[in-house]
């Protein structure tokens, strides 16, 4: 059965890039445009992994990450955060809040697939593999 990936980013172009990259490799993909919508979806659907942008309107990625990790029902979902180039502060904070890995934007499709596949296969924490 296909693995399901939850993608959260306010940019329709980035969501499309994430979605198509993953769908072409056989993943089921569901998306949301902000943290608030994402939190609603997470209350009813289950996912194998989530890719979450940090800078979003309404509820940003850090707040969403924090809520996920505080919820015993969903806090085991591996999470990759998307951070801006040079945003070391967000990388550190994401790690503190429990993110499993991060991708620096703009990313290439193969970088995304490598991180998703690695996390799904081994559960390996990629935070220190920079």
């Amino acid at each position: 059965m296909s693995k399901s990936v939850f993608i959260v980013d306010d940019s329709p172009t980035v969501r499309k890039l994430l979605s198509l990259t993953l769908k072409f490799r056989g993943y089921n993909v569901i998306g949301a445009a902000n943290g608030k919508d994402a939190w609603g979806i997470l209350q009813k659907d289950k996912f194998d992994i989530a890719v979450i942008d940090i800078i979003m309107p309404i509820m940003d990625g850090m707040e969403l990450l924090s809520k996920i990790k505080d919820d015993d029902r969903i806090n085991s979902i591996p999470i990759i955060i998307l951070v801006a180039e040079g945003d070391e502060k967000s990388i550190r904070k994401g790690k503190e809040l429990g993110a499993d890995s991060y991708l620096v934007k703009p990313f290439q499709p193969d970088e995304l697939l490598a991180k998703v596949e690695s996390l799904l296969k081994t559960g390996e924490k990629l935070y220190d593999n920079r």
Partner: protein
Amino acid sequence: MKNSPRKTFGTVEAISKIKISPERLRYWETRGVVKPKYKKCGTRKFRRYSEDDIYRAILVKMLVDDEKYSLAGAKRKLMEDVH
């Protein structure tokens, strides 16, 4: 977290992030894949690409190079609704 100001990229930075040649990126501009703004500096004009331009180009590159779409087909895919 507050949104940071929208960042733009010059041609050298853009081709490095997209991983394509400058000629291909200029051709894609003529086909409407990317729509850089032009910034005047003296008598010269320089292209400035938005983050959206960068992602559109990365997406089109994946569709054309990896998934064997035509450029027209990749552009249509760009216009489709997504989650």
